């Protein structure tokens, strides 16, 4: 008899989650459907659009390309964890707002997760480094230029002692 479900235990945004899940359940669907964390979006289910990106043990991963059972014992962070509180936007979110880098918002969580990793590793990225660091995220609305500006703005606010 095939085992169609499996118990999985992992952390989501700091909290321990234990669930009996279908082995075929994608992490993106579990986060959205079972945990109500709908900030993570599903655009392509192929890994090319970037809208499903989450952090797994601090690294960017496509949640549409992970089975929920594969994050056993890991620590997952979604866009919901990025703001310090739900009332205050963090510097990257604030910068996206100020630089008009958000229109429909569908790609935004993925871009902000990617930007958070980029700025963690590089406090004063060049345009080329931003483009390389945010590669793999598609935006149909903004034309990307304001997104690059937003990352520069966020860097200048987060690391005012660095850079141009």
């Amino acid at each position, binding site marked *: 008899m*095939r085992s*169609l479900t499996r118990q999985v235990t992992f952390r989501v945004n700091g909290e321990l989650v234990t669930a009996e899940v279908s082995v075929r359940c994608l992490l993106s669907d579990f986060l959205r459907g079972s945990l109500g964390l709908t900030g993570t979006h599903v655009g392509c289910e192929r*890994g090319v659009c970037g809208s499903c990106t989450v952090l797994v043990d601090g690294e960017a991963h496509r949640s549409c390309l992970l089975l929920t059972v594969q994050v056993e014992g890991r620590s997952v962070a979604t866009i919901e964890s990025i703001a310090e509180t739900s009332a205050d936007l963090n510097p990257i979110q604030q910068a996206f707002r100020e630089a008009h880098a958000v229109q429909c918002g569908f790609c935004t969580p993925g871009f902000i997760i990617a930007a958070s990793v980029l700025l963690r590793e590089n406090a004063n990225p060049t345009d080329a480094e931003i483009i390389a660091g945010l590669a793999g995220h598609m935006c149909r609305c903004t034309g990307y230029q304001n997104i690059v500006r937003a990352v520069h703005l966020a860097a200048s606010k987060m690391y005012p002692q660095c850079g141009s």
Partner: protein
Amino acid sequence: MFAYHRPASVAEAASLMTQYGPEARIIAGGQSLIPMMNARSVSIGHLVDINDVSELGSMRVSPEAIRIGATVRQRAVERSEEVARRCSILHEALRCIGSPAIRNRGTVVGCIALADPAGEIPAVFSALGGTVAVRGAKGERQIGNEDFFVGPFRSALRADELVTEVRFNVPGPGVGTAFIEVSPRLHDRATCGVAAVTDGTTGRLAFVGVGPTPVVFDVTGLSHSISLAVTGCVATLEPPGDIHATGAYRRRLSYVLGVRALEKAMRRSEASRVSG
């Protein structure tokens, strides 16, 4: 619907593959397999997840070879200073794959096992030369780069086998290398890619995206004319046409990228011979 298995050892994984053979698929990074599963373009009875098999998680760099286990992430190899120093073409090719998030999870062995006819890692594997270590019902065997790629997304692996490690030959002293590709956007699948290896006089070119498998040429007379050498290779290619490019355009790309890659590799070869 599939059954999910997470073996703790290579022996256990091999036993599962022996038991379930044609119905079973290995998953490591999943960055190519899960898209196929999501698209319902592949039907799997048993998914064998090898990410917990610690024996498969190591990378070893020596002056002769780079050995990469089946669960080693592309990002780990990309970030290795030793790999960048001893085998820069592997580093160059990795940066063309997917995007940072894809490379955080995807594996180098997965790229080999997938046998994508436009794959960057197959190009580098074919140009450098190397072997794939395989485990199956009948035990272990090695498959050489020239025998591994059989057709588009088809390798010489049998239904009961899994790849445990890939070994890339490290270029010797005085050898220069380069990898170049053209794709619609930065991290898209290559329309055409070339891996070039040369000692300044002779060399090897491996083209991808222009045939059912990587197409490899041994070239000579490079100190005389790179253009002539590449023209000779490209004349025998029969590149396919698709929505991204016609066969004729791919042929043109093969020539231009072949020349550029060889010129770059030649410069690097000369630089390394001069610096000694």
